[in-house]
């Protein structure tokens, strides 16, 4: 772990694994939620209402960030595996995976937050 500061390729690997496991956890919860559909419209709509509260909205934002990070870094890793950009791998992580990821996150998160605030 001591190389995290110096060699960001290892940071990228840790980020990829942690985000991946978090997404698996989300997938589990998501499948469970879809099962709620079978309990009929009232039960389902009631379940959906709980997802409107601020805690869930914050978790949703966290999910969004996790997906973007994992996806962009995954693209970076695939490029590296194909032999593209190895000399720039550090920049690829911080500028593209994290930097552009942050831009995409804000592009999606700001409207989401505004819409949620408008509704409540």
């Amino acid at each position, binding site marked *: 772990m001591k190389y995290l500061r110096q060699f960001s390729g290892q940071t990228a690997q840790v980020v990829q694994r942690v985000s991946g496991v978090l997404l698996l956890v989300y997938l589990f919860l998501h499948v469970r939620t879809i099962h709620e559909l079978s309990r009929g419209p009232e039960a389902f*709509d009631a379940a959906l209402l709980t997802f409107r509260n601020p805690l869930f909205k914050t978790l949703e934002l966290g999910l969004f960030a996790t997906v973007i990070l994992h996806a962009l870094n995954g693209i970076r890793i695939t490029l590296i595996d194909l032999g593209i950009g190895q000399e720039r791998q550090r920049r690829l992580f911080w500028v593209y995976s994290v930097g552009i990821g942050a831009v995409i996150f804000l592009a999606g998160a700001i409207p989401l937050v505004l819409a949620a605030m408008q509704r409540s």
Partner: protein
Amino acid sequence: MRNVLSWYFQRITGALLLILLAAHFWVEHFMSAELRRGDLSYQAIHSRIANPTWQFIDIAFLLVALWHGLNGVRNIILDYSRIGRRATQAISGVLVVAGVVWAWWGIEAFRNL
């Protein structure tokens, strides 16, 4: 050959997931005015999911995501050689079973509508 195919497949499923996720996200949150407003409701979702084409895409999404994710977990385990060959094989078996059960559970959600 199994190892190299598995390595390539992790990248291929990753790329597939990007496409499937984009499609899924668009369908769930942007396809109709109602969804764009954030008015998710039983009606909106149920009417779409009853359609076998959407079911196929959603189930494909689930299966690809499960393979990609559980294979990823398996690679994390393989990096820790100190837990030994037997334990690694046992955990791999658990991951396979978990994957099958999880996939079945996901598909069940559609059959119960």
